[in-house]
């Protein structure tokens, strides 16, 4: 007997595909939801059935609680997995799912609300003895109060929306004169993304690392950590390369950071999978940043070194099963690395680059995993997060997983839209990265210089010309949704329709 008769996946893209695959292995039929532009998306076909839930704009589909819960009831789903992003950390959603008599695969509503409010979370953690960054989490949100707080904390300070996450709305303020404009932008983004424009201020820790602890709790009160991940390689405060174990932690520091993660989760009353994020200063001091009350994008690196399937554990715990292991058996074997492939252009300020994926070649080999939300023919729209796929490699050592990543990236082909592929290769090849010398400003420090020549050498141009000359029209029976880029090739027809 499967744990649930049916499970609805309230998400899209690679995470919806990934959840569907574990459910299939567990014998649980899945229901996908999709907006009108996602009708032909990969995640829709990976599920056993699918329900249209509205317009392209996320607020009218993937963020519409009533429609998502309605789809679950209509299809007879017994459980709802929220993935990450969208409604995954929304207390109202968790509550609506429970009120409909369904099981929410994640912590209950009060935990989301407690941790979703950065102000309240900071206070709770400080009270539980978990170190927090010196800062301001007061109720007085006037510019005068924030200015005074900034002066007291000492510039530069970080302005962060009190709600939400993923780096959205975060701004670094270098001095008093910059506060007003940073506040305005931060509040505007926070209001749009989270419907709440309160902010907190935090001291900027210089050259910090981002280290986080994966936690997992069951309904019986057992709570364990699944070691740490380091996610210091970021752009615009968003992670692009993650790994475990962190090269910054020795056994003693690792034990302290992971214990703090468990203490934070316990203070939050945590159940199911979650992540406690810390800033690690060069001195070895570390501070609570926030808790993500959901599965994390980068969870596959933890899976690679622990041998666990986190989605399976989430579903089991949600069904009321006790954790099948205790803390003392959790151990890391080897090292794992993840690179996030985004539809964005590093040469143009990381601008999103929507379009159609015309060709996709996926790397393979020992220790290589590719979690993709797209395939050849997929349309990447402006409506959603530009994450296309995640490439994960495992090795017996950090050096080996990096070597495997470098080789796999060189064989990862996404054509049709601009991606950050070149930047990922530059990061993985960089001596400072290989040396484990990471901090959250790594990309700006090491890769802000002149980008490599975006134009191919003459020999490559010749190869392209030869390819276009030799290309055959696509055979009959293309996969559904696949583009037909071949309608105009074979001859150099000038003025062919684009």
């Amino acid at each position, binding site marked *: 007997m499967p744990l649930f008769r049916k499970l609805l996946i309230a998400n899209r893209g690679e995470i919806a595909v990934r959840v569907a695959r574990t459910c299939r292995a567990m014998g649980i039929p899945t229901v996908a939801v999709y907006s009108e532009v996602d009708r032909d998306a990969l995640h829709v076909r990976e599920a056993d059935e699918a329900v249209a839930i509205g317009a392209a704009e996320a607020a009218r589909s993937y963020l519409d609680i009533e429609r998502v819960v309605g789809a679950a009831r209509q299809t007879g789903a017994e459980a709802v997995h929220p993935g990450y992003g969208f409604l995954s950390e929304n207390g109202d959603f968790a509550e609506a799912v429970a009120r409909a008599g369904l099981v929410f695969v994640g912590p209950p509503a009060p935990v989301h609300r407690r941790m979703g409010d950065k102000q309240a979370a900071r206070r709770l953690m400080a009270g539980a003895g978990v170190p927090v960054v010196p800062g301001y989490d007061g109720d007085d949100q006037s510019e005068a109060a924030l200015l005074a707080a900034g002066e007291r904390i000492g510039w530069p300070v970080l302005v962060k929306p009190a709600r939400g996450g993923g780096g959205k709305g975060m701004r670094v303020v270098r001095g008093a004169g910059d506060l007003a404009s940073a506040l305005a932008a931060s509040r505007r983004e926070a209001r*749009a993304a989270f419907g709440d424009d309160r902010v907190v201020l935090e001291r900027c820790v210089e050259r910090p690392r981002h280290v986080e602890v994966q936690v997992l709790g069951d309904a019986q009160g057992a709570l364990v950590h699944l070691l740490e991940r380091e996610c210091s390689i970021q752009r615009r405060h968003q992670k692009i390369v993650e790994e475990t174990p962190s090269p910054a932690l020795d056994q003693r520091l690792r034990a302290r950071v992971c214990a703090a993660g468990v203490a934070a989760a316990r203070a939050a009353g945590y159940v199911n999978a979650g992540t406690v994020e810390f800033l690690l200063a060069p001195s070895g001091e570390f501070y609570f940043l926030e808790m993500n009350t959901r599965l994390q994008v980068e969870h596959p690196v933890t899976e690679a070194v622990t041998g666990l399937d986190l989605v399976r554990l989430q579903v089991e715990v949600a069904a009321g099963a006790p954790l099948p292991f205790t803390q003392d058996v959790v151990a890391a074997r080897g090292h794992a690395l993840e690179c996030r492939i985004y539809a964005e252009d590093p040469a143009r300020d990381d601008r999103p680059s929507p379009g159609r994926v*015309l060709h996709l070649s996926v790397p393979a080999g020992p220790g290589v995993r590719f979690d993709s939300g797209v395939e050849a023919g997929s349309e990447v729209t*402006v409506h959603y*997060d530009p994450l296309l796929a995640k490439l994960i490699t495992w090795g017996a050592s950090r050096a080996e997983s990096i070597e495997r990543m470098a080789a796999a990236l060189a064989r990862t082909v996404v054509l049709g839209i601009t991606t950050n592929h070149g930047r990922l290769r530059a990061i993985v090849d960089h001596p400072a990265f290989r040396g484990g010398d990471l901090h959250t400003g790594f990309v700006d420090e090491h890769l802000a210089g002149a980008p490599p020549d975006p134009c191919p050498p003459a020999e490559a*141009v010749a*190869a*392209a010309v030869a390819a276009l000359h030799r290309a055959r029209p696509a055979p009959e029976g293309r996969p559904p949704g696949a583009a037909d880029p071949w309608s105009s090739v074979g001859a150099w027809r000038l003025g062919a329709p684009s």
Partner: protein
Amino acid sequence: MRLACGEDVREVAVSEGGEGLSVTVDGAVFALDVRETAPGTFVRRRGGGAETFHCVRAGDDVHLFWRGRAYELRVQHPRERAAHRAASSSGLEAPMPGRVIAVNVSPGQRVLRGEELLVVEAMKMENAIRAPREGVVKSVGAKVGDMVNPGAVLVELE
């Protein structure tokens, strides 16, 4: 025939010759024995070895993956070159499809280099459109809430 990569334009020609193709790029001749093994995937045989590369075309856009790197090329038409030059000097275009969420300037206003003129939101990120130089705003082509497409002229500077 011309293939452009940004401002870099290559004059190319192709003909059948002996074992494979003879391709000329700006006067340099390359002999290439190339065949398509799957849509978008090509094998080039050379000496005793072979290498794989990838290439797809959509309209005039050519996407190439060669020795670990992706490149974007464009088949260029003579008329288009002149039009491109004219457009790039006249105004500030939307860089991507998105929604205008802030307009900070109005016609007649003097702006400094780097000043934020508009904000376009796409894929949940805010993207500031900044003045490339000092000048006076001649016209504003979008208002808050508008959906804009790449190439739409948002602001013209005098």
